[in-house]
């Protein structure tokens, strides 16, 4: 993967959510940290094209995100509130939904859904109602629904929210095992503590771009 920010910025009315940013991301694991409202989610949305920059450009694998009307298919996104991301009521149907209209046969779709759930030993979730799942199960369902479409890059916005120690560990293990490129946004600093590259945002600006230990130390200073 190659993500290039070329002076990309986002302003909402008079408020600058993200100041002009220039950087290139190629690492397989990237962490993003910062205070509430510092611009983390805005940054992530620029990468998959959900938000278009109001100045500058964002180039993902050679393509300008502004050229596409919708979000980029090669970037999967797990939202800060995964319950908002589930569209169909039953887990299996929801995972299959992203594959509809792409020329797959019914059998192919079923096989892909099964494979996606299988990656996380989660076949037992297939027939469950999405809204009854526990927090950890919900994260897994959301992950399957995104991974089944075969994205190159995965963005996870606070994936351990509301999870207990056990589910947290599970999600952490899953993230570590993903062959896909992953960008992880989190207030849960342990989750990114081993990453070679962590971006710290502060008031819409990049305040650190460094190995985890350094970025986290800087974050603690800011938060103090």
């Amino acid at each position, binding site marked *: 993967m190659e993500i290039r920010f070329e002076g990309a910025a986002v302003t909402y009315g008079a408020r600058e959510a993200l100041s002009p940013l220039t950087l290139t991301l190629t690492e397989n694991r990237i962490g993003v940290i910062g205070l509430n409202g510092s611009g983390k989610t805005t940054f992530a949305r620029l990468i998959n094209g959900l938000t278009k920059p109001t100045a500058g450009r964002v180039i993902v694998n050679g393509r300008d995100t502004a050229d596409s009307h919708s979000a980029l298919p090669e970037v999967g996104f797990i939202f800060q509130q995964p319950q908002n*991301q589930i*569209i*169909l009521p039953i887990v299996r149907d929801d995972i299959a939904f*992203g594959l509809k209209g792409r020329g797959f046969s019914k059998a192919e779709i079923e096989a892909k859904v099964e494979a996606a759930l299988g990656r996380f030993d989660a076949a037992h979730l297939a027939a469950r109602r999405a809204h009854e799942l526990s927090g950890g199960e919900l994260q897994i369902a959301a992950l399957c629904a995104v991974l089944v479409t075969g994205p190159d890059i995965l963005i996870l916005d606070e994936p351990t929210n509301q999870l207990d120690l056990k589910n947290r560990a599970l999600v952490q293990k899953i993230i570590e095992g993903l062959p896909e490129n992953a960008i992880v946004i989190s207030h849960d600093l342990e989750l990114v503590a081993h990453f070679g590259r962590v971006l710290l945002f502060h008031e819409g600006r990049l305040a650190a771009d460094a190995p985890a230990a350094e970025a986290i130390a800087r974050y603690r200073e800011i938060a103090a």
Partner: protein
Amino acid sequence: MQSLYVEGTSIMHRLPARSKLLVLAILGVILFTTRNIPLLSLGVLITGAVYFSLGLPFGQAIARLKPVLLTILVVALFSLAFNPWHGAVEALLRLTALMLFAAAVTATTTIGEFIDEITLLARPLERAGLVAANDVGLAVGLVVRFVPEILGRYQAIKEAHAARGIKLRPVTVLAPLIILTLRDADNIAAAIDARGVRRHVS
């Protein structure tokens, strides 16, 4: 919807909500019982003067009225097509005056004040054993509070479609929207009970 209130210190702002609602109701009755065009025109002038003196920037004041004005125009045009011309003019003036005053009331009354008035108005119904007056106020408050929440949720569901490359369709939007709303309702109901808002009722 909640953005309709504008902070300010005009006479309308200082008047109690009750008087404003009362005038609105009386105005509605007068406007719909008269067919006198000069009188209706006077109504438009007065209510217009009230509305445009609230301290709202002119552009914004007009922008708020636009959708309603369009509907009124169409109603008048329809009336013109099938009735004598003065019927159309009457309809136009009548609806415009009412709209102007209603807009002035909503712009100067907070939801809290509305709820208090509604609760009071519902008291007779409560005495008749029909409803709990506080519930009426509470219901009104809940709607006003949650309309923006529902619109925000629609936005989130739309984005979820985009992020997964799925086409928006009414059912794939409405079903998750309703399910999430129902689930919130359970939590909100618990929160209301915990705060004792309906304690005196049950």
